[in-house]
């Protein structure tokens, strides 16, 4: 009986997992198929579920005519740089807020962080642009990176504080008594234990920054500084959407984010050896 129950349970599990996967993959399937279609196959009726053959001209166009390689590099630089920067800042402030003795102060600051999340991002763009244009900080990938850090650190701090809160202080007490500095404790003891959280937060940073479109368009002018989302968006013109090449671009744009996810989830779902200290 128990075996049957188990089998049934696994069966349901497989169905559920399959369902999630199909739901998730629908647009990816369509985008991939479209990227391999020639221009005459795009707008047929009834629609073609598969391309007639693997047509690579969209990808060729992407990397030759549309210069996608440069944008890819720019995006990688900005996304990785800003994500690491934001990670360091968030972990520091998350830990600081978590361990600071005055709960009133930490909650106050935390509320300040939540407040920033209530702000519709689009609203910030114009004042930010005008402010930075006064200092000639437009068209600068580094400045854009800083803006990206600003966008994500509130979330990062809130999340990391939450995770650090779950780690008992007792874990650190031993080290503190031994004379370890605050940063050392963070680095040596707390971080290894909260690796899943750190990885999750990092992957969120990367993905959000990698995909950010509107700020990139607003703050970058030179063609050689453009990022991937801006480049993808440039396939939308007055003459409509160039679905062929844009699909190819979307597929290529997905690769780093999937890579980051695949790398991060190894840590996220690794499971830990818990119970170093019994509550």
């Amino acid at each position: 009986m128990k075996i049957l129950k188990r089998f049934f349970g696994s069966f349901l599990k497989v169905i559920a997992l399959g369902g999630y996967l199909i739901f998730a993959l629908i647009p990816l399937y369509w985008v991939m198929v479209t990227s391999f279609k020639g221009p005459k196959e795009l707008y047929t009726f009834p629609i073609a579920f598969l391309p007639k053959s693997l047509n690579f001209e969209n990808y060729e166009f992407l990397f030759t005519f549309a210069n996608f390689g440069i944008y890819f590099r720019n995006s990688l630089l900005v996304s990785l740089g800003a994500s690491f920067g934001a990670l360091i800042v968030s972990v520091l402030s998350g830990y600081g807020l978590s361990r600071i003795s005055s709960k009133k102060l930490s909650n106050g600051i935390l509320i300040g962080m939540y407040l920033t999340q209530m702000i519709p991002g689009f609203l910030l763009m114009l004042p930010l642009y005008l402010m930075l244009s006064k200092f000639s900080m437009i068209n600068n990938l580094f400045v854009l990176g800083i803006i990206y850090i600003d966008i994500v650190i509130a979330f990062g701090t809130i999340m990391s504080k939450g995770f650090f809160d779950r780690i008992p202080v007792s874990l650190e007490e031993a080290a503190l008594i031994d004379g370890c500095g605050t940063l050392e404790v963070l680095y040596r003891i707390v971080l290894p234990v909260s690796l899943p959280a750190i990885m999750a937060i990092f992957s969120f940073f990367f993905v959000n920054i990698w995909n950010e479109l509107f700020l990139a368009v607003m703050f970058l002018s030179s063609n050689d500084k453009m990022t991937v989302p801006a480049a993808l968006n440039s396939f939308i013109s007055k003459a409509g959407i160039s679905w062929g090449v844009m699909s190819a671009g979307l597929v290529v744009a997905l690769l780093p984010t999937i890579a980051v996810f695949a790398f991060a989830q190894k840590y996220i779902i690794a499971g830990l050896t818990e119970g170093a200290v019994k509550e």
Partner: protein
Amino acid sequence: MKRNLKLFIMVLPTIAILILFTYIPIVQEIQIAFENYNLYNLSNIYFNGFDNFIAIFTNIDFNFVQIVLNTVLWVVISLIFQFTLGFGLALLLKKPFKGRGIYSGLVFYPWAVSGFAIGLVWAWIFNGQFGLINGILMRLGIINQGIGFLSDPHIALMSVIIVNIWYGIPFFAIMLLAALQSVPEELYEAAKMDGAGRVKRLFNVTVPYIRPTIASTILLRTMWILNFPDIIYAMTDGGPANSTNTLANYMIIKMYSFYNYGQAAAIGFIIMSVLLIFATIYLSALSRLEKGI
């Protein structure tokens, strides 16, 4: 004391960046909400009190009540399904199985795409004539006329909500999965020994332990969904006939079509106020819940 100071200094970079790049601009923006600020004539900026707000509330072309209703439905339905489905996925992924790595990489990717771009893709998929969904349904013989997923005002809102759900599941799945990893195994052992079944273990052990994560992700996600116009902007731009227009999308329309930043800022102010009230109620309810334990 010295440690406390060190801890405070660790928070300072975040505070400084946020003040510089978020708080200062937002104060300027709030000021704009009370001004006649139109990009068509920048020499004519003046303080106009509550005029922008009144204009928003009484606009005959974009019914404010309908927009608010749409927004509530958009947020609530998206949130409920994103959370439950995300939590379900996290639970399914908790125990290792063969190919879990690749699987999660694939199933999490919706979060990895740009909201605007994927909105365009979904708009095509949902197209009432040439869309993938209609194509599949017609091939299977279920229907023989395309369904206007985005052109029928009665179902357009549900269609964009479905896309939003698709988009948000990975967020909850990843965050909750990471939280689930931190639940000590001993608690489960203890519960099992007490005779608690799967469901009981879920509600009595897991949920309370990760409640802070659940609480903060839900609060954050609510704010993000409310503030996130990309999908609607890309798929329907608020149409047809205002049926998918939400506060955030309305703000975009005011900005990019009407060039009326004053009114756009006013809508933003309304959004922020709503979220502030919501967060206050939410957090006080939460703390009352905590105290009850």
